[in-house]
C-alpha cells in the first residue's frame, strides 16, 4: 500500500494549461476517483502519477519519496488504459504474464502466477486466445489481470469501462472493489461518470480546467460540494434565491422559508431527495419518464429546469421541498 501525494503539479501542452498547481493526497489503500468533464486534465494527472508524463513543475511523492523523475517501469504501478492496449500479438496468458517476465520472473513462474490471476478474474479457458477473439468484457478483465499480475502497489484506471454497457460496467466495478478489498492496493480511477465514481470510490476529487476544485471522502463531497459546478457535476439541481425578509427567500414569484442569513443563497438538492410539500417550490411538469425508482420529472420553476424523482404519476403541476438541501456559497 502506498500513499500518493501530488504537490503543486503543473503541466502545459504548448499553450494549453492541462494542470494548474494541482495538489492531491490519495490515502494508502483507498480507491480515489478523479472526476470531471472531458478535457479537464484528469487523464494528464493520471499519466503524471504513472510517469508517462513529466510535470513542468511540482512533485509527485509515493509514501513521501519523491518519484517525479522516476520512469514508469520503476514505479511498481499497474495501469488499465482507456483503449486497454492489450498486445494483439500475445495470447491472454502471455499478456497477463508480460509484466512478470519484464520484471525478471522466470517463464514458468510468471505463467503460473498469471494463471492464478486468470482464474481469479474468471478467464479460465481463454488463456490461449488472442485479444481479438474476446468479447469487450473479457478484454477488460484481461487488461485488469495484466495490470494486477505483478502485484503493483498502485492501480491506475483511465476510464477503462466507458465502452461497456451499464450492467457489465457495474460487474467490473464490483470486481475491482473485491480485488482491492482482498489485496489492499491503492487505486486511482479516472472517469467522467459521477455515478461510476460514486459506485467504487472512497474518496472523490472533482476537477475543472486543470484544477481540483473539491476533494474529500465521497460522502462528504456529495453532502457538501461547496461549488455550483461540483454540485451540478454530481447530479444536483441548483437554484438561486434572493432574500426578501427574515428567513424568507424568493425565486420568481414564489417565497419560501429557509433557516439562512445570507442575502442570496444557492440551494442544491439531488433529484431523489425531495418530498411533496404545500410549502415547497411549485413547478410545472414539462416532461415525465418512468424508471424503476419512480417517475423522473423535468420541472420548470421560474424558467429554470430541475429534475426530481416522484413516487406517483404527477399532475401538470407539483409542489415539493428538498429533504436534504445543501447550501453553496454564492460565487
Amino acid at each position: 500500500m502506498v500513499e500518493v501525494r501530488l504537490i503543486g503539479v503543473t503541466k502545459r501542452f504548448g499553450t494549453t494549461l492541462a494542470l494548474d498547481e494541482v495538489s492531491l493526497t490519495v490515502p494508502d489503500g483507498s480507491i480515489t476517483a478523479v472526476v470531471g468533464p472531458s478535457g479537464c486534465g484528469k487523464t494528464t494527472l493520471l499519466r503524471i502519477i504513472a510517469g508517462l508524463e513529466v510535470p513542468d513543475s511540482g512533485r509527485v511523492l509515493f509514501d513521501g519519496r519523491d518519484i517525479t523523475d522516476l520512469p514508469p517501469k520503476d514505479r511498481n504501478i499497474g495501469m488499465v488504459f482507456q483503449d486497454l492496449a492489450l498486445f494483439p500479438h500475445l495470447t491472454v496468458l502471455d499478456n497477463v504474464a508480460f509484466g512478470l517476465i519484464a520484471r525478471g520472473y522466470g517463464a514458468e513462474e510468471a505463467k503460473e502466477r498469471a494463471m492464478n490471476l486468470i482464474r481469479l478474474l474468471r478467464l479460465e479457458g481463454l488463456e490461449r486466445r488472442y485479444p481479438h477473439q474476446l468479447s469487450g468484457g473479457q478484454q477488460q478483465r484481461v487488461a485488469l489481470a495484466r495490470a494486477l499480475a505483478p502485484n503493483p502497489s498502485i492501480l491506475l484506471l483511465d476510464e477503462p469501462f466507458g465502452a461497456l454497457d451499464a450492467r457489465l460496467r457495474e460487474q467490473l466495478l464490483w470486481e475491482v472493489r473485491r480485488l482491492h478489498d482482498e489485496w489492499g492496493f491503492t487505486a486511482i480511477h479516472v472517469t467522467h461518470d459521477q455515478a461510476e465514481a460514486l459506485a467504487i470510490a472512497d474518496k472523490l476529487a472533482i476537477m475543472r480546467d486543470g484544477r481540483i476544485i473539491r476533494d474529500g471522502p465521497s460522502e462528504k463531497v456529495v453532502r457538501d460540494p461547496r461549488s455550483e459546478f461540483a454540485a451540478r457535476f454530481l447530479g444536483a439541481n441548483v437554484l438561486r434565491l434572493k432574500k426578501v425578509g427574515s428567513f424568507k427567500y424568493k425565486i420568481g414569484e414564489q417565497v419560501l422559508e429557509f433557516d439562512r442569513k445570507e442575502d442570496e443563497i444557492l440551494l442544491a438538492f439531488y433529484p431523489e431527495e425531495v418530498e411533496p410539500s404545500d410549502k415547497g417550490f411549485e413547478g410545472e411538469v414539462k416532461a415525465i419518464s418512468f424508471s424503476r425508482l419512480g417517475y423522473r420529472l423535468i420541472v420548470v420553476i421560474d424558467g429554470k429546469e430541475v429534475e426530481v424523482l416522484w413516487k406517483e404519476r404527477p399532475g401538470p403541476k407539483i409542489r415539493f421541498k428538498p429533504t436534504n438541501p445543501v447550501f453553496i456559497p454564492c460565487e
Partner: protein
Amino acid sequence: MPGKGSIVSKLGIISIALLLGLWGASSFGLLLRGIPSLPEAIRDRAIGRAFHFSFLQAFASALFSVVLAIPMAYLDATYDFRGRKVLKVLVTMPFTLPTISVALSFLLLSRKGIVPSGWPSIIAAHAYFNFGMCSQILSATLSSISTDMEEAADTLGASYWFKLRAVVLPLVLRGIIYSFTLTFVLCFTSFAIPLLLGGPRYRTLEVEIYSLYKVFLDRGLASGAAILQLGVTGFISLIALRSLPAARSKEARLRKNLPKDPIHTALLVYYCIMACLALYPVTYLAYRSLFNPLTDEFSPRIYFKVLSPGFDPSLGSSPLNSLINSLFFATMTSLITLVMASLLISSVPRIKNLGMLISLLPLGTSSISLALGLYSIGSKFQIPGWILITSSHFLISAPFTFRSLEAGASAIDPVFLEAAETLGLDRLDATFKVLLPLILPSILVGGFYAFAMSISETSAVALLSTPETQTLTVAALKYSGVRRFQEATAISVLVCLLTWTLLGLQGLVEKRMKWTRR
C-alpha cells in the same frame, strides 16, 4: 451501394472476366511457348547466371532499401518536428519516378564516377528507387501501433530493450517482411535499371528474357526463362501478400516532440541527408538535359527540338509521335481501368472481393513476362499492337489502381444512400445524386493513377512496341542506347513531369476527398 438484386450489382463479373481473361491469356501464352522450352531454359548457362545475379542483386537491394528506411520510418512515425512532411515527400519522390529516369540518372552519375559502375550501381539505383516506399510502409505500420501499447509495457516494468523485443518488433515485423518482399519482387523483375547499368556482364533474368526475345528472337527460350522467373516472383509475392500489414483507418500513435539528444539529432541529420540524396539524381538529370557538353551550352533548346514534328525519327518514331502514343495508351488504360473498377466496386461484396483478389494476380508476374504472354497470344490471333500494349498497362496497373479506387469507395458509408431514400429519393436517383458525387473523387484518383503508371511504364512497352507504337519511355531507352544523352535526359524529364503532374492532381483530389473517410 446498389441493391442486391439489381443488375448493376452483378456487372463486376465483366471486370472479373476481363482481368481473368487477359491475365489468363498472358499466362496461357507464356506456358504454351515456355513449357516445351523449360528444360532447355533450366540447362542454359546464361539464363542460370542471370537467375543467380537477379536473385543476389534483388536480395541485396531489398535489404539495403529496408535498412536505409528504418531510421526514417522510426522518426516519421514517432516524432513531430519542423519540416517532417517536406522530408517525407522528398524521400518518397524517387518511387514516383519512371524507372527509365532513375536508370538514366545513375548511368550518367556512374559515367562521371560519382556512383561506382557495374553491380553496385544497380543496387544503389534500386535502393534509391525503393527506400522511400519502404520507409512509407514501415512508418505506416509503426504509426498503427498505439502509443498506449508501449506505455502499457512501460507501466508493466519493461525496460527499453525488452519493450522493443517483446512489443514493438513483433508488431512491425509484418511491415518489415512486407516491404522487404515487395522490394525484392520489384528488384527481381526490374528492367530498365539493369538494362542500362548492368552492361553485358550483369544481366538480370528480365533483361535476359528481353534479349532472347528481341535480339536472338528465341521466343520459346524467352518464355521458358519467364516461367522460371514466374515461379520465384509468384512465391515471393505470396509471402508479401500474406505479410500485408492490416490496413488501419487512422494513426494510433501520438507523435512526440523530437528529443534534442545526440542520437535523435544524428537521426534527423541522416533523414535530411537522405532527402538531399533523393533530390540529387533527378536534379542531375534535369541539369544534364539542359547542358550540351559538345558546345558547352546551357539552354532549354533541346526540349523544343525533341518535340518538333520533324525531329529525328531514326530511332523508331519521332519523340513527338512517342508522346502522342504515350498519351493515347495512358488515356485508354485509364478509361478501361475506370470502367472496370467502377463496375467492380458497385457490385455485391462477394463479386467485389473476388475481383479485388483477381486484380492482384499480375503482381506476381513481371511486366516483361506479362507482355511476352500477351504477345504469344496476340501473334496467334493477329491482335493489333496497341491493344496488347493497353492490355498490358491495364494489367500492370490493376493491383494498384483497383485498390486505390476501392479504398476511396469503401470509405463511403452505405447509410448515405439509405438516408437519401428515406428523404424521398428512389434508388436510381439516390445513386446519381448521392453515391456518384461521393464516389467521383475516388474514380478520379484511380484514373490519374492509371494514367501516371501507363505513362511511366517501360518494360512491357519496350517488348511489345513497334516503331509506330513506340512511347516516350522507349524513346528515352533507345537514345540512351546510342549514347545521345541530352535527348534521352530531355525525354526522361518530360516523362517525369507528366507523371508528377498526374500524381499531383491525384494528391489534390485525395486531399479534397478526405471528408469521405470514416
